[in-house]
């Protein structure tokens, strides 16, 4: 598991799973469609990623589908890390 995957997964477990909820969060667990993270809470997850990964995710790219699994979130982070590197 790479560093960003671990970072996202740990954050989701810590912040969005209810106390006592022992569901396993894998890289492909549905987060939005599975009701673990709702579209309102997605904003705090986006803010967390922007801060920890030092990126800016445009609102147009922050769709429920793009945030639906740890795997998709990590792909999104990599995309904007690359975009920023190119821009620099």
């Amino acid at each position, binding site marked *: 598991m790479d560093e960003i995957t671990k970072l996202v997964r740990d954050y989701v477990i810590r912040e969005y799973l209810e106390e006592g909820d022992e569901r396993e969060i894998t890289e492909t667990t549905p987060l939005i*469609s*599975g*009701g673990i993270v*709702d579209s309102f809470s997605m904003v705090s997850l986006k803010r967390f990623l922007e*801060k920890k990964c030092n990126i800016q995710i445009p609102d147009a790219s922050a769709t429920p589908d793009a945030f639906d699994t740890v795997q998709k979130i990590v792909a999104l982070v990599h995309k904007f890390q690359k975009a920023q590197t190119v821009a620099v």
Partner: protein
Amino acid sequence: MSNPAVCEELTAKSYEELTANFDWSIAERQLGYQPGEAINIGWMCSDRICHLGMADKVALYWEDFQGNHQQFRFDDLRVLSNTVAQFVCDLGIQPGERVCLFMDRVPELYLGFLGILKTGAVAQPLFSAFGDESLLVRLQNANTSAIVTQKKHLHKVRKIREQLPNLRHIIVVDAGDSALQAREVSFDMKRTPRVEDFAVYPTMAESASVLHYTSGTTGQPKGAQHVHYSIISQYLTAKWVLDLQPDDIYWCNADPGWVTGTSYGIIGPWSNGTTQVVLDSGFNAERWYEFMERHRVTVWYSAPTAIRLLMKEGTEVVRRHDLSNLRYLASVGEPLNAEAVIWSQEAFGKMFHDTFWQTETGCIVITNFPGMPIKPGSMGRPFPGITAAVLNTKTYEPITEPGIAGLIALRPGWPSQVRGYWDNEAGFKAKFKNGWYLCGDRASIDGDGYYWFMGRDDDVINTGGHLVGPFEIESALLEHPAVYESAAVAKPDPVNMEVVKAFVTLKRGYEPSDDLELEIMNHIRKRLSPLAMPQAIEFVDSLPKTRSGKIVRRVLRCKEFNEPVGDLSTIMDD
């Protein structure tokens, strides 16, 4: 079934004819209710439908995000709501006591709602994403006797139950082999012997039925108390506005923790004997369309926020699905913008019909009827039997000139009108002026009698169709160790119409930072709910106040909306 199948009563008559000759007794007759007799929503939605020969008709097709599914006929609704009712009675719950439903959209929520009503107790549904603080204030206010919940939400109840000495029973619907604690009891609907006959409590028209909580500008949330007679409005508006027909497959996206989810997610469709589908899942465009295709959904009642999220995902995903059965679309929650109406025409070949109403009205009050020309962006016209107006903000007299903004107001007297706020008579009285009920929203009326929404008339934040009170957020913000003062206001948002923005001053020793912003956001999300979480926090040195020291949210709100602030003569210089 792709052509509009407008209900018979509407086809031959113009809006003016319907309105002029309207009487709510139409619904009384169709429901077989005689004034003065007992009337019980639980019975009306299950036993009555069986008596009409529809016992074997599917009432509910339920599915969750993992694909687990269950199907219930109207006879199952009858027997299983009897089973819930008997269980609740055996616990000693008396008519009039409040029983909270605190669950995701699982079948026990829908059947529990009917079962509680059959006992004469008052159903108090609460949104399962509420944090422990939101839950506590609502249970304390209602002096709730029992709560029905799931194992996954039990920790929130356990956290607050010592502060709720009158909460006698905590009913867990999926306890399995889990160890339960004092006051907790397991109810497994599948394993409990089915109760074929239950003596439904003979509630009368004015007996309390449902207690839904809604937010105001000041103070804690208010419990809007409805009565069993509300079914008269909910039945007829579901039939006429949502155009529910005998063969329809109906999908309402709303959660029964909110009023749409009970008025039109339970009472409206089932009192009409309509089959409905429920998807207990978060948002996913592909999944939603696949669900509608598979179940051949014909009538869809959604919300602008969901529609705008679907717009974001584009029309290509729509084209991948056969939605030809879909014949009627309606929307509720906040004003549906013209772009969304036009997009729905492009995506589905049909326009969404906007409907306006609120927790206190209990039913749709201003709307676009089937067959009535839609003006994209307009709320439509008052439902027959509803006398509406926009009032001058100073005189509280109706404005007769078209296009002039005023307060949306309704003449009291329709069947599902709120009967009071629980334990808050003063708050309820304050909602009336000159014999009008004030909705708290502003609008104008055009020359054709169509209403055009303009915004809230108070500090309440309408986010994703849900009203959030600033007071509750500010109180929770002050519980954070770094926060000295705070103000919560609405901020415009392209998807949710409005979101919460908090202005915060910090205590000595704390500095603004991204970490602190995120920490405060998550603090509110967990204490109250994701809806109440500020989507933006601005750290400021001071907040605008009146000379007496009261925070003036209006100044901050106007700044967010780029609106003129108006008279600032009472604002302090600092």
